[in-house]
């Protein structure tokens, strides 16, 4: 929902016009400007609220509503929603509502961990390549081209068949496969920024390399990095679900939303709808929410979109 609060092309004096104008003259770094534009995007704020609610549900939920998610109880298998089990039970007798919380913990932990790790790794790599330039840069970029030429899912399928998957291993593998695009983006950003007048100016003024990177390059490149981090997060959750569907996800009794969903789909045509809809809805909502946030940050960064 790009730029929901910004005036359409034909009407530059739309309701949000004055706010945008005020922002252009607003003091403070790019971060604050991004935050202001972001706050005006209702869809993105809703996305942020949704993520907060879902995170709370997954991590605080089990404290209020503890359920058995370890011992299989076949006597309680596939019970319809109602009474003790608001969302029914699954084929192993696990409470589906409780399992959504536990599964969500894996999905969210994976998403956040992969997102943070790829951002750190990719940013460092891209920044070094961009700052070094020359042959070092060329070599470092060819490494990325090579790794990008094989789809991540393909490499992942090879790897999970070699090592036994658990959450830590999958986080590590996904990180190793997901840091490439961000490295490339950051390098591009650094290369552009390096030639800009303000960086040239501070360089002439005798600023140290460290100061240029921390005070001038990093704040200006942060937008691209944040956008990529949110998309990496939702992609990681989806990739884990694809792995689960292929039977290569987390081994039971661990759970993630994708695993619950692909397990439930086996029973879709037998009428056990409560095994499908709850994980499908929460998985899609989460990924949509992260994508809305990423989209809004990207719009907030795009100067041309702010002043059409």
């Amino acid at each position, binding site marked *: *929902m*790009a*730029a*929901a609060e*910004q005036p*359409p*092309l034909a009407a530059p004096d739309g309701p949000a016009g004055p706010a945008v104008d005020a922002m252009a003259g607003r003091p403070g770094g790019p971060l604050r400007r991004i935050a202001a534009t972001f706050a005006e995007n209702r869809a993105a704020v809703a996305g942020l609220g949704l993520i907060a609610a879902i995170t709370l549900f997954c991590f605080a939920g089990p404290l209020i509503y503890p359920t058995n998610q370890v011992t299989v109880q076949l006597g309680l298998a596939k019970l319809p929603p109602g009474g003790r089990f608001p969302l029914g039970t699954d084929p192993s007798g696990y409470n589906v509502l409780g399992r959504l919380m536990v599964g969500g913990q894996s999905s969210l932990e994976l998403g956040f961990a992969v997102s943070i790790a790829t951002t750190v790794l990719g940013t460092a790599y891209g920044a070094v390549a961009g700052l070094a330039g020359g042959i070092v840069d060329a070599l470092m970029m*060819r*490494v990325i*081209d*090579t*790794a*990008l*030429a*094989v*789809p*991540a*899912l*393909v*490499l992942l*399928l*090879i*790897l999970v*068949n*070699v*090592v036994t998957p658990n959450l830590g291993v999958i986080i590590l593998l996904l990180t190793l496969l997901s840091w490439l695009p961000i490295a490339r983006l950051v390098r591009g950003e650094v290369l552009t920024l390096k030639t800009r007048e303000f960086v040239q100016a501070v360089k002439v003024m005798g600023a140290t390399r460290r100061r240029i990177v921390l005070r001038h390059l990093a704040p200006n490149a942060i937008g691209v990095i944040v956008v990529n981090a949110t998309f990496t997060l*939702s992609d990681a959750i*989806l990739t884990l*679900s*694809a792995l689960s*569907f*292929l*039977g*290569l996800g987390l081994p039971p009794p661990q759970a993630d939303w*994708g695993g619950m*969903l*692909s397990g439930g*789909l086996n029973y*879709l*045509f037998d009428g056990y709808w409560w095994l499908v809809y709850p994980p*499908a809805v929460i*998985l*899609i909502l989460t*990924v*949509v929410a992260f*994508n*809305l946030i990423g989209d809004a940050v990207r719009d907030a960064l795009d100067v*041309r*979109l702010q002043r*059409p």
Partner: protein
Amino acid sequence: MTAFLIRRIGQAAAVVMGVMVLTFVLIHLEPGSAARAALGPHVTAGRIAIFNSTYGLNEPLYRQFGGYLAQVARGNLGTSYALQQPVSTLIAQRLPRDLLLLGVSTALALILALPLGLYQALRRNRPGDYVFTGIAFTLYSMPDFLLAIALIAVFCVQLRLLPPEAPQATTVTGLLADPRALILPVLTLALVSVASFSRYMRSSAIDTLAQDYIRVARAKGLSRRLILARHVLRNSLLPVITIVGLSFPAIVAGAVIAEEVFNFPGMGLLFYQAATSHDFPVLLGSTLVVGISTVIGSLAADIAYAVLDPRIRYGRG
């Protein structure tokens, strides 16, 4: 242009070489896994040793790789452990089917996504835009397998219109003889791509519409239709072309899932089965094909870029 092409092809060759090294190292991380997968979990150490020496798996890795390269140079990709067929035969059978599946679905995705993105850009922030944005976000945020199974649930189980399995014919003409069975796999892959392509087209068209030359064209009194066709569409296409060229890995990943759901006998299914059964020659061969295709994809994107944009002329700088 020629100099640019030569340099670009040289880079591409280096990348393909890198892909082969990478895959080779990855699959050999666990010694004995291929033997156990081919001969069963209770195989004795002696049998593993025999298997490894038969296939040369006990030699040092660089030796194995050198031998593999020499064979590949002669067009020999080895023999599948599980299927006991030459890998080149397997790939030759399956690759045309995938070109059909991926080609038709990507073409369909573009036919749907380009007008859709343009429409959304023109109706920006009005109800029509919001509706399609919502649909695109939902499609994009769905696991591919869920989309595929939802389509089966609607078109096969509820409406009883289409078969749930892809055609099993061995040739491309055989596949085309049963077009109804191809609809769902094609639609699954197309819908996933429509979601992302239309987003890029939308934001690219919004950028183009804000340019001065569009204002000039309007001021000159050109018809709306001419402006859209000649100026907006052509200029908005550039970023989208790049995305299509670069999204090849994502399309392949989608194909692995779609082929598994619809039992489509293509490269994706071949690769998935090879990965689970540690069929090294098939894994190496299919990764090589995917790597080459990706490199060709990004090369094609570069060339299309130059053809579409008169400002870009490679090889002058």
